[in-house]
């Protein structure tokens, strides 16, 4: 067994043995969110999306991708991306798209904070970034968006990764609005990533 897997086992053991913690101590505070304002998509610049695929670029499509769905208006795409972003960062809208969400409970209780520190020491920022990618894709695929790969240098102009550091809300929303512009824009012709 490698050290990495042994350490993962130890964390798993910590999680398994402590499952009877009182629920009342487990919950982090919630922050309700206001509904997004109406936005004219014409005010949002369309980023550069054209490129010629190469094997090297295609290799990283699982990291650098964007969404598009035919017949989708900007505000719908923005709402969808906000909802999926909520799930991806350990928040989530409640039901029926009401903008009310509960943060993930990663650092609330004392035990949780210790556990978080241990988990973060092992899995680190890279694991959190990967989890975000997986949740965004899962959520947007359920919404039947198509997924298209991009070279990293084009992707980073309107996307963000989130590991240990939380992306400031203003910056996050600015990126999500551009992503919504792309998601509701013309259908791309290259780089589709099939499920």
């Amino acid at each position, binding site marked *: 067994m490698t*050290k990495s897997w042994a*350490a993962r086992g*130890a964390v*798993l*053991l*910590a*999680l*398994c*043995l*402590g*499952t*009877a*913690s*009182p*629920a*009342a101590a*487990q*919950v*982090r*505070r*919630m922050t*309700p969110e206001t509904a997004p304002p109406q936005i004219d998509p014409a005010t949002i610049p369309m980023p550069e999306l054209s490129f010629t695929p190469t094997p090297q670029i295609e290799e990283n499509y*699982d*990291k650098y991708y964007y969404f598009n769905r035919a017949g989708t208006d900007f505000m719908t795409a923005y709402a969808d991306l906000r909802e999926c972003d909520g*799930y991806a960062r*350990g*928040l*989530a*809208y*409640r*039901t*029926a798209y009401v903008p*009310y969400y*509960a*943060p*993930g*409970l*990663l650092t*609330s*209780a004392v*035990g*949780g*904070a*210790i*556990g*978080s*520190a*241990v988990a973060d020491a*092992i899995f680190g920022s890279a694991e959190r970034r990967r*989890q975000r990618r*997986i*949740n965004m*894709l*899962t*959520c947007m*695929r*359920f*919404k039947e968006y198509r997924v298209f790969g991009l070279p990293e240098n084009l992707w980073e102009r309107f996307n963000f990764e989130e590991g240990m550091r939380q992306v400031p809300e203003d910056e996050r929303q600015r990126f999500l609005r551009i992503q919504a512009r792309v998601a509701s824009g013309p259908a791309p012709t290259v780089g589709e*990533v099939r*499920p």
Partner: protein
Amino acid sequence: MRFWTIFATALLVALVQFAATAEARNQFNQTEAITIDPQKAYFFFRANDRRELQFVREVTPEQLATWRAARAQALARAVQSYELAARRYRDEVEYCRDRPQPCIVLERPTPVTDANFAYPPPEADNFVSVERGPQFTRVGDDTTYLVAVPPGSYVFYGPLIRNGAQAAGFCMCMGSLRFTARAGQIVDLGEIRFPDQDVLNARASRPDAPRTATAEIRPYAPGMTRPDRLAGLPVVAAEWRAADKMPNYFGVLIDRHPAVAGVLRYERDRVIDDRTGSDPVPLAPLDGR
């Protein structure tokens, strides 16, 4: 060195938490006699593997009333704290008016209102864990579980292990199933099927992995047998309904329960109660207040 520090810390956390949270288990083992407590409800289900599961109970009107009162009190305290902080901030701004900058060290506090007040949701205390063990019966990987729980309407939250605020696994955050567990009855959920570990590993590590369900409930059917120890006890088959989207309370990977004919279906990501064709009933009032 780093490895051993991590390993030792994880073990220490495990042991401390295990000692601190030792409480009566509600999960029956393979030898316990079953006495039905008329104040409690019971889940029974079969599983093709041993995995920890989470269920969450619907918020009752009484619980909601208590929660509203507690929230109102907490809000009043938070508003008072904000007003105190705002006064200190104003005083500091006044003090620094004619002094060289930087002088102001306090951050301008954010007003606390009913709309932006941060508070746990009413269902936060309603989680029920079914752990890997003890099992009610076990033959190889095929196991059954019997668990005593508070009566109520439950939603299958997903296959995830949880330790206080820590969790790992998948939540059925984008659609699930619910059922009612009545006092004095054992409700038979049917069988919970899990995919192979390879599938779960892929879903947990590769963004492009196929969206194979991470858990699937197969409602009770007459072909499913029950252990002899349940003979003569009040066992009823679960009546399944669709459950709407839920928050990712623990910040885990997300999934949804596969469609179940006549119970649960989806229009894209919209959850549909297939009995009525409408949206499912939420776990708690939508605005939580």
